[in-house]
């Protein structure tokens, strides 16, 4: 007898995120390995759906615990010492950057307590303990099978950070996501992902926890950092490009997968990897679709980071307009800063600020995509039957609400508290940002471990995803240049100086 039936109604489970309908096994909303007893991927879903809590609820609970503990730690430390710092900072860190030897990234020259190795072990213990409890309670995964599996997945995530931390690699925006994905793919496509590792492969849980934590970093007050011109470049052009690219993909290219179309459109128009992750989770995209979108985005980011500043210099374009153009078009934040810096300090400032404003759009896009998906795309899948409000709520990815709530809460803390900016900065930089990065890194390792290269090939057939990216990015380049010229070169020409 199913759990819902035991309680006489499905309503409480719908409201609180209990999943009473099996998800498709290929998208981010599923994990056939939710229990060590479930060796056969084709078997477990019915059992899982009736006896377990879905990842949305678990991820929101994990993120909420991290955010509350991090906030309390800063308040307690401020109360005792008067300094607004996070006492958790030394216990939460990732490997640092290095040039000659990877050990440089683990050991600092000062006290050993300040060394990243302490923080890496701390992050392992925090994430390991939280996820073990969440999966033990929510998915009935035994501690004995989870601990060794998680230890190896965490070690792979740390190795991905080490690879991304090499100075040269880092300077070309080759982010940890790429290496985490690559390490997982190498294992799964050569020796195969060992069965004992399966209990820790929880892409959805890690990605959604990371996204809710990311919500805390989306501070609305940053929106007006560059006044109206910044808003026009980042918040007017971006949605136009996102929607146009998606419509182009559906109507002209006729991409078979709507979710792939959406992930590429969001990734290319909003802010690269982070937007791709949020969009993929919001539209329940397949794991290989997210991998493909991120691969394309990182490749073109490296290219644009080098080519765009050269074009701006060669054509003699006004550096402010050029910087705003790059801020609105280059996918990744770090690459925007590198490209902006080639135009001088003002170029770096304008480019990075435009990108930051675009970063904030991530919450609105994830919410919009989730609403569109449950009210339109999934309704079409139901042969145009009218879908009730209750059904929409049941299908709605609840973690998006967690993301928005985290953003609103931290925006209010930032605006209302006397030392709001210092407090939020201490919370985010002291612990939540690093833990969020680790959750994403773990998710990418898991995606790699679950993906077969053969799964990627059908997505590449006909080169349609690449054509979509190229056409969308071309439109992005044209519209952003026009808007940057209009805003920074005509309407607010004399208003931009800091």
């Amino acid at each position, binding site marked *: 007898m199913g759990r819902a039936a035991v309680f006489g109604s499905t309503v409480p489970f719908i409201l609180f995120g209990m999943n009473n309908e099996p998800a498709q096994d290929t998208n981010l909303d599923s994990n056939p390995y939710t229990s060590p007893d479930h060796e056969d991927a084709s078997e477990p879903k019915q059992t899982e759906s009736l006896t377990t809590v879905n990842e949305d609820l678990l991820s929101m609970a994990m993120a909420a615990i991290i955010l509350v503990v991090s906030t309390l730690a800063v308040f307690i430390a401020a109360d005792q010492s008067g300094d607004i710092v996070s006492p958790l900072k030394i216990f939460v860190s990732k490997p640092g950057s290095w*040039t*000659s*030897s*990877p050990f440089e990234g683990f050991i600092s020259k000062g006290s050993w307590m300040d060394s990243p190795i302490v923080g890496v072990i701390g992050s392992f213990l925090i994430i390991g303990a939280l996820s073990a409890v969440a999966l033990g309670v929510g998915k009935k995964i035994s501690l004995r099978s989870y601990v060794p599996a998680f230890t190896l997945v965490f070690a792979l995530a740390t190795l991905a950070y080490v*690879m*991304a931390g*090499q*100075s*040269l*690699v*880092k*300077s*070309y*925006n*080759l*982010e*940890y*996501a790429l290496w985490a994905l690559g390490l997982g793919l*190498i*294992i799964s496509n*050569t*020796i*195969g992902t060992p069965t004992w590792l399966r209990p820790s492969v929880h892409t959805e849980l890690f990605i959604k926890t990371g996204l809710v934590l*990311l919500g805390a*970093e989306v501070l609305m*007050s*940053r929106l*007006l*950092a*560059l006044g109206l011109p910044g808003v026009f470049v980042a918040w007017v052009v971006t949605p136009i490009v996102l929607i146009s690219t998606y419509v182009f993909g559906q109507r002209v290219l006729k991409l078979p997968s709507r979710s792939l179309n959406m992930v590429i459109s969001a990734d290319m128009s909003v*802010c*690269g*990897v*982070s937007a791709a992750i949020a969009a993929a989770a919001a539209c329940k995209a397949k794991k290989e679709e997210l991998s493909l979108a991120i691969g394309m985005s990182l490749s073109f980011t490296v290219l644009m*980071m080098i080519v765009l500043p050269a074009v701006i210099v060669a054509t003699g374009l006004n550096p402010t307009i050029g910087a705003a153009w790059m801020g609105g078009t280059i996918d*990744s*934040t*770090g*690459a925007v*800063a*590198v490209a902006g*810096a080639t135009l001088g*300090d003002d170029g*770096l*400032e304008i480019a*990075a*600020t435009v*990108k*930051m404003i675009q*970063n904030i759009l991530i919450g609105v896009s994830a919410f919009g995509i989730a609403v569109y998906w449950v009210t339109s795309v999934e309704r079409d899948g139901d042969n145009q039957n009218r879908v009730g409000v209750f059904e929409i709520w049941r299908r709605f990815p609840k973690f998006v609400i967690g993301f928005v709530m985290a953003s609103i809460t931290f925006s209010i803390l930032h605006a209302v508290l006397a030392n*709001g*900016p210092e407090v939020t*900065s201490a919370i*985010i*930089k002291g612990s939540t*940002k690093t833990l969020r*990065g680790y959750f*994403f890194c773990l998710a990418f390792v898991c995606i790699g471990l679950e993906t077969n290269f053969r799964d990627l090939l059908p997505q590449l057939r006909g080169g349609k995803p690449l054509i979509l990216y190229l056409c969308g990015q071309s439109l992005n380049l044209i519209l952003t240049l026009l808007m940057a010229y209009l805003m920074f070169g005509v309407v607010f020409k004399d208003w931009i100086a*800091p």
Partner: protein
Amino acid sequence: MRTNRQVAAFMIIGFAMIFIWLRVLPRISHQPRVMERLQRLDAKGIDASAMFYTELPCMDEILERRGVR
């Protein structure tokens, strides 16, 4: 069932990665032009691998200059 070929492929990729990361990349990183570029980025507080604005060290200074708290 794991075949010898699969294990060999895994080992070859593994050794290639170790060689690239421990020998090739450090050697390139120590070339004067590359070193200069890396130091310039460091001095400006630019983390080229930043995924979100909160990961960019120079962002605080930029926001302060613009009078945004």
